C-alpha cells in the first residue's frame, strides 16, 4: 500500500506537476483521468459535507449511504466534498456511474437515501430530487436532466475562486494536481523573480477582497522593497462578519488552492514563513487546512529548498480566539504575537513594520485564492474581467429573506439587481423587496432606487455601502430596519476593542438610543419621551463623531448603517419614535394586543401564559387585555389557538 502511494506521488509530481517525462504513456493518462473523475471504475457517490451541509443533516446522510453500500455489498466509492455554494439545497448527494455524467440530488436527508440510490442503480432518476448533471463531453449524459451549469443560479456566475469547490475531494492533493493545481506555483519558482510576480499581480488589477480594496500587487511590492532579513505573509481567515462564509467555503471545498496562493505570495515578497490566522470555531476548515499542509509537505511543495529552487517556506496555522476586531490587520498581528487584539496606529503600515516588527503582508483568503489563476492565465486575462477600477470576480454570501441562500461569484460590474433577482431567485415567499445590506455589520443599505448599481468598489461607496468581505443581506417588508440596525449596533458595541473612547462609549450610547425607541414605555412621562426624541436629534451627530475620531476601520465604518438608514428609512424611524408603531411587526414591544370578543372562547390559555396578569376574564367568557399592564411580550398571541388575539 505504502509503495503504491509513493508511486502515485511520484507519478503526479514527475509527470503532471513537473512535466519532465517526454512521452506520456496510456497508463499515466488513465491515472490522471481517474483523478479528474472523468473516468470512474465503480459508482462514485459524493456528499456535500461542508459546515452548511452538516447543519442540514449530511452526517446522517453519510451514515445512511455507508449502510446502503455495506448492506448490498456494492463496490462504490464515497467521497466527501465541500460546499457547491447552493446552501438552500443541502445536503447534496451526487452520483456518478461509470460512463455516465455526474448527477446531483438536492436536499437528500437520510430517509431519502434509499429511494434515490435504489432508483439510480436501476438507471432511473427520481425527478423530484434531481438538481442537475455536470457537463462532460466525454461521458454519456442523462436524458431530460438539466445541466448544472445551465441552471439560473450558476449560468450568470463566473467561478474562478470557487471553481472546484464542492466538486473535488478536498482531502486529496492528487485530485488537485490532476486538475492543474500547483502548476502556477511551479511556474512561479521556475520562471519568475519575486519582482516579476509583484508586477504581474499589479498589472492584473487585483485588489484586497477583505474589505479595504487596497491593490494587492502594490502591497507586495512595498513589503518586498523594505530591506529586512525576515518577512512574513499572513493569510487572514478570521472571517467574523455575521452572514459571510465564503472564506470557509473555499477552505472546506478546495484548501490546496489557498495553500498555492499563499506559496506564490510568500515567494513574491520573499517570506519564508506564512501564517494562516483562522477562527477556531471553523473546526472543519482547520482540519482541511492541516491535512492540506501535511500533504503539500509530503509532496515537497512546501518545505526546504522547494524543487531545487532555493526557496524555503513554512506554513503555520494560528487559531484566533474569537474577536471581530482581529479581522483588522494590525489587531490580527497583535493577536498572533499573543497580545490583546487591539489595532495599532498606522503608519507604519504592516508592509513596512508588522509581525514582530518585520515587513508583513496580510491578505484575505479570497484575494490569495485568485492568485494561482492569475499566474496561470496571465495579468491581461484577469484585467479584462470587471470594471474600470475593479477587476476580476467577487464572491458574495447572499443571505436573509432570499429564495436561494448561497455563495455567488460574479464578475465585477454585475448589478445588484441581477444577483438578487436573476441568480438567487428573488425574495423568499414572493414578498416585497425592501433593502439589501452589503459589506457586513458596518456596511450600508441599498434600496430599490439604487438596486441597478454595478458591483464595484467605487460605485458601492458612492451610495454609502462598502464591498466589505462580501456579505449580502437581503430584507423584505417583514423586516424592521430599526430592529436590524439595533442588532448591528449591539454587535459593534460588543466587538469594539475599547481602545478609542468614541467607539467604545459612542456605540454603547447609540445602542441605548435604539433600545429606547423600540421599548414599550411604562408610562408616557417626560423622561422616557425625552430619551426617545434623542433618537432623532443625537444619532446623527454621534455617528459623525465616532467616524471622525476612531482609529481603525471598525469605528470608522460602524455608524455607516445608522447614517445610511436615517437617509433612506427616516420614515420608519419616525414611526417608531412618534407613532410608537413598527410596520413590520418585529419590535413586539411596540405592538398593542386586543382580544376579538367574537372569536374568544374563554379557554383561559392566554391568561395563564401572561407573565404580568394583564388578561382578565372568567371561564367560557371572552377575555380582555388591560393595556396599561401589558408589556407586549406576545405570549398570548402564541398561546391562542383560535386566532382571537389581534395585533395592532
Amino acid at each position: 500500500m505504502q509503495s503504491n502511494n509513493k508511486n502515485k506521488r511520484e507519478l503526479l509530481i514527475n509527470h503532471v506537476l513537473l512535466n519532465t517525462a517526454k512521452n506520456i504513456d496510456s497508463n499515466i493518462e488513465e491515472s490522471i483521468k481517474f483523478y479528474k473523475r472523468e473516468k470512474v471504475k465503480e459508482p462514485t457517490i459524493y456528499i456535500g459535507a461542508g459546515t452548511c451541509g452538516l447543519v442540514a443533516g449530511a452526517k446522517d446522510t453519510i451514515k445512511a449511504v455507508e449502510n446502503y453500500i455495506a448492506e448490498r455489498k456494492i463496490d462504490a466509492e464515497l467521497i466527501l466534498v465541500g460546499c457547491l455554494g447552493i446552501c438552500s439545497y443541502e445536503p447534496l448527494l451526487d452520483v456518478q456511474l461509470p460512463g455516465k455524467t455526474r448527477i446531483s440530488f438536492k436536499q437528500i436527508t437520510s430517509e431519502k437515501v434509499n429511494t434515490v440510490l435504489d432508483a439510480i442503480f436501476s438507471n432511473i432518476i427520481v425527478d423530484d430530487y434531481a438538481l442537475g448533471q455536470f457537463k462532460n463531453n466525454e461521458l454519456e449524459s442523462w436524458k431530460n436532466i438539466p445541466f448544472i451549469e445551465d441552471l439560473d443560479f450558476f449560468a450568470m456566475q463566473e467561478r474562478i475562486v470557487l471553481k472546484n469547490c464542492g466538486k473535488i475531494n478536498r482531502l486529496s492533493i492528487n485530485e488537485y494536481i490532476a486538475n492543474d493545481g500547483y502548476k502556477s506555483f511551479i511556474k512561479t519558482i521556475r520562471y519568475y523573480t519575486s519582482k516579476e510576480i509583484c508586477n504581474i499581480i499589479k498589472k492584473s488589477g487585483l485588489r484586497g477582497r477583505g474589505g479595504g480594496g487596497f491593490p494587492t500587487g502594490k502591497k507586495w511590492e512595498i513589503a518586498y522593497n523594505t530591506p529586512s532579513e525576515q518577512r512574513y505573509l499572513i493569510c487572514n481567515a478570521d472571517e467574523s462578519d455575521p452572514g459571510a462564509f465564503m472564506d470557509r467555503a473555499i477552505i472546506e471545498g478546495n484548501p490546496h488552492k489557498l495553500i498555492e496562493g499563499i506559496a506564490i505570495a510568500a515567494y513574491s515578497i520573499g517570506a519564508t514563513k506564512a501564517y494562516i490566522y483562522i477562527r477556531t470555531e471553523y473546526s472543519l476548515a482547520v482540519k482541511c487546512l492541516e491535512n492540506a499542509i501535511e500533504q503539500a509537505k509530503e509532496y515537497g511543495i512546501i518545505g526546504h529548498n522547494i524543487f531545487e529552487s532555493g526557496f524555503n517556506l513554512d506554513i503555520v496555522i494560528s487559531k484566533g480566539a474569537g474577536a471581530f476586531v482581529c479581522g483588522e490587520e494590525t489587531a490580527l498581528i497583535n493577536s498572533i504575537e499573543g497580545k490583546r487584539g487591539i489595532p495599532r496606529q498606522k503608519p507604519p503600515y504592516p508592509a513596512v513594520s508588522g509581525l514582530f516588527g518585520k515587513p508583513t503582508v496580510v491578505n484575505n483568503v479570497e484575494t490569495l485564492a485568485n492568485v494561482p489563476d492569475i499566474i496561470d492565465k496571465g495579468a491581461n486575462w484577469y484585467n479584462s474581467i470587471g470594471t474600470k477600477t475593479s477587476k476580476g470576480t467577487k464572491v458574495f454570501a447572499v443571505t436573509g429573506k432570499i429564495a436561494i441562500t448561497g455563495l455567488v461569484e460574479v464578475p465585477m460590474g454585475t448589478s445588484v439587481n441581477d444577483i438578487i433577482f436573476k441568480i438567487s431567485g428573488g425574495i423568499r415567499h414572493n414578498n416585497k423587496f425592501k433593502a439589501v445590506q452589503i459589506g457586513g455589520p458596518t456596511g450600508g443599505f441599498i434600496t430599490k432606487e439604487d438596486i441597478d448599481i454595478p458591483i464595484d468598489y467605487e460605485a458601492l461607496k458612492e451610495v454609502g455601502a462598502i464591498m466589505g468581505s462580501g456579505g449580502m443581506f437581503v430584507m423584505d417588508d417583514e423586516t424592521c430596519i430599526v430592529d436590524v440596525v439595533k442588532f448591528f449596533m449591539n454587535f459593534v458595541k460588543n466587538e469594539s476593542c475599547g481602545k478609542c473612547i468614541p467607539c467604545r462609549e459612542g456605540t454603547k450610547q447609540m445602542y441605548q438610543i435604539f433600545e429606547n425607541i423600540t421599548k414599550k414605555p411604562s408610562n408616557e412621562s417626560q423622561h422616557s419621551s425625552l430619551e426617545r426624541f434623542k433618537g432623532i436629534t443625537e444619532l446623527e451627530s454621534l455617528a459623525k463623531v465616532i467616524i471622525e475620531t476612531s482609529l481603525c476601520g471598525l469605528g470608522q465604518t460602524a455608524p455607516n448603517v445608522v447614517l445610511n438608514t436615517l437617509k433612506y428609512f427616516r420614515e420608519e424611524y419616525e414611526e417608531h419614535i412618534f407613532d410608537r408603531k413598527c410596520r413590520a411587526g418585529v419590535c413586539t414591544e411596540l405592538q398593542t394586543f386586543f382580544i376579538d370578543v367574537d372569536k374568544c372562547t374563554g379557554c383561559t390559555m392566554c391568561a395563564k401564559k401572561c407573565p404580568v396578569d394583564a388578561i382578565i376574564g372568567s371561564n367560557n367568557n371572552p377575555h380582555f387585555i388591560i393595556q396599561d399592564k401589558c408589556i407586549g411580550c406576545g405570549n398570548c398571541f402564541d398561546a391562542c389557538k383560535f386566532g382571537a388575539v389581534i395585533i395592532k
Partner: protein
Amino acid sequence: MSKNIDSIINKFTNSNRDNLIPILQEIQNTFGYLSEDAIISVGKHFDLPTSKIYGIATFYDQFVFKPKGKYHILLCNGTSCHTSGSKKNLTEIEKILKIKDGETTSDGIFSLQTVDCIGACALAPVISVNGKFYSKVDLIEIKKIIKFYQSLEK
C-alpha cells in the same frame, strides 16, 4: 489538576509570547475552562503578571472562566438567525433552564452561549448542542430538544 496544566505548558518548549494564546486554548480544550490556577501558572511560565494574562484571556470571546455544562447549547445570533427569530428562542431557553446567556445551570447539566454566526444562514435559526446541529428551530422545537436532553439525565 495543576500537574496537568504544567504538562500542557511544558509541551511548548519556548516561552515566546506568540505561544500564549495557543497554550490558553489547549488548557481550555482539556478542561473546558480557564481556572484561576491555570492563569497563574501560565503567568509564571511567561514571566508576566497574572493580571496581564487575565486581561488577554478576557479580551477574547472564546475563553470562559467557569466550567461549561454537560450539554453546551450554542445559539447562533447572526443576522439571518436574528431576523428569523433567534431572539425568541433565546428567551425561551433562558426561561426553561432559568439561566442567562453565558451561564451554566446550578446542577451543571446545561450551559448556554450565543455566537455571532456559524455560517449556516440558509437554515436559520440554528442552535447546536454539543456540536449536534438543529436547524430551523422554533419555540416548540426548542422545548422538545431540551426535554430530550433532560430525559437523558433521568
